[in-house]
């Protein structure tokens, strides 16, 4: 059975791209979220094997969403999607419980490597 993924990003563009990369690698995209609070809600509903999480999102940011999700499920596997220059935020996200991160612009191979590490 393929792994299920929840893709969280406020940009449709990014969601589409991540979904395409992962779907082509055989993952099943079971949901998308545009805000941190949607991500928390959908995680509760969908219990995906993996979450990709943008850091900067409206409403509730990605890091707060990680905290919330990890509170519900300490084993949640969350992959942060960050941009160059967000070192401090990435560090914060990992401290909050994110399992790995990828850096935009995404290279499919690096995204998949990170996913393997997280699910590994």
């Amino acid at each position, binding site marked *: 059975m393929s792994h299920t993924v929840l893709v969280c990003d406020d940009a449709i563009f990014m969601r589409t791209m991540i979904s395409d990369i992962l779907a082509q690698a055989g993952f099943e995209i079971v949901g998308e979220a545009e805000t941190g609070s949607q991500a928390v809600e959908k995680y509760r509903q969908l219990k995906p094997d993996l979450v990709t999480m943008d850091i900067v999102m409206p409403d509730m940011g990605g890091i707060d969403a990680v905290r919330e999700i990890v509170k519900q499920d300490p084993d949640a596997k969350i992959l942060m999607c960050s941009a160059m220059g967000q070192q401090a935020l990435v*560090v914060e996200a*990992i401290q909050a419980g994110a399992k790995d991160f990828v850096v935009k*612009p995404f290279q499919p191979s690096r995204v998949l490597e990170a996913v393997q590490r997280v699910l590994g």
Partner: protein
Amino acid sequence: MDLSQYAELFLAESREHLSACNQLLLDWERTPANPAPVAGLFRAVHTVKGMAATMGYGRVTDIAHRTENLLDLLRRGSRPATDELLQLLFRARDALEHAVELSVVGREDELDVAEVVADLESAAALLAGPERPAPAPTAAVEPPAAPGRSRLVQVTLRAEAPLKGGRALLALKRAQALGAVQGVTPPQAAFESDDFDGGFSFRLDSSAAAAEIERAVRGAGDVEHVSVGAGGDERRAAAPRGAGAAAAAEAIPEKSRHIRVDLRRLDELMDLIGELVTVRGRLNELAAARRDPAVDDVAIQISRLSADLQAGIIQARMTPVWQVFDRFPRLVRDLARELDKQVAFRVEGKEIELDRAILDELGDPLLHLLRNAVDHGIETPAERRRRGKPPEGEIVLAAVRERASVAISVSDDGRGIDRARILERARREGLVDAHAEALSDDQLLRVLARPGFSTAEAVTSVSGRGVGIDVAVTRIRALGGSIDIRTEAGKGTSFVLRLPVTLAIVRALIAGVGRERYALPLTYVAETVEFGVQPTTIVEGREAIVLRNRVVPLVHLRRMLGVSGDAPARCPIIVLEMGERTSGIVVDGMLGQQEIVVKGFDPPQGTLPVFSGATIMGDGNPALILDAGGLV
């Protein structure tokens, strides 16, 4: 990876974010002391940056990155906006927009961004203040050895690894799974700094084998080299990690509930449905002639299905008006600034929906009206004060849903149109009766909307409402809509545009006059009454009926179209209502209601200006569509 498939998505989404930036900047400009919009700005620019970097659009990324830096400094400092900063941010936003548009069509090279980039840099440098001393690199002093089976682990990350601090932290976490970690060098706080070079060490208190520790640390990714001290035993890294996971052969369709559809596809579908509706009409007529219950049955089913299909497609074409309105706040602001006026601009009813094809045509007419409102409607602050008005004028752009139409109004609280001056001009140019004493609102609009109406004088000395009004009126009428004007000297002017919600297929009354049939869209039909039953009267020289205390002037279509022969003794009157204007159209007979597919139409010279298009009836014969706007 082929990125071109994402270009349209990139463009559409970047536009949305940049449009939001405009609104946020305007908000900030209105209340400079409140830094709330900065977070949203930062987010929008950040998103554009991420998308552009992914697409490989270097210049967009560059401008976005520097703008983001500046916004970040502003955000952290919670600083009020200065005029200079706002101007720079507006410029940066415009440059971004330009860069986005050019990049998507592969003309990125034509951009010269040096100036705005330099200005962003110097503004950021100014805000950042004197360079803070960089945190001194921690001396590579060996941390005190912990008791037990503590071993020194030294890690070097790959030089090309991005965000090395995050990676280092992941490595530490993996190590922690094996035992207690101490003596991290440099201290963990350094991981948050961009100066962190990817080399670090720590002591791990664990009974795990060295190979196991190394494997765990490597599991964090991007690790170039790991050494695990075990009594001075240092191991070198083995072969680098293999390539990424192989992509599985088949993609799983994603479950997102939204897709973006090229508008042209919807147009094609609409055309096809238009043809289907025409054929359906023919089928219904044939079925009626056959009187075969089985055929009737099929005809009814097809009618129902095609009606559902049509409703679905029209719904898919509906677009909220903000997609056009959103660019106006910035435009009004820029224009007001240029003219040294103070204008509060308000938008209402942003979520009201219209057929995309209509919405697309609205931009220019609204632009004309707004421009006129700022330029000629709103007075200078000094003049407003003299008249006892607040120095800041107000312009409201509002959309409201009415029955089967949408009313969009542009209202200002400015000086209003000087009727006397317009009347004088109109008389001189023979546009009204030389003895006319006053111009009604309708007459005023008719005068202003005449393409030939010279506004050279009006522009400077009156209110210049003639500029662009003819363009706006023509455009709106072509869409089957109408424009009304209300103006009061000293109080302001308001234009109301009424538009059908959709263009392509409308329900119409089919009326007969002589041997021809005419279609009259139901959008503006209020009711029908019978001529000869209602007493007629003469009001202001026009024949009219009185309906519930309202005077409804009559238009005899037969006479207007020059049809010979006599009208039947009793014939129906179709009462049209457009805003507050009304008119009763006298026809020979009513032939029922039906859906018609509107086909655009270039009337030959000399055609009465009362037709807005043509349609094909169920029997294959054409019928002209009457333009309600031209009849009331």
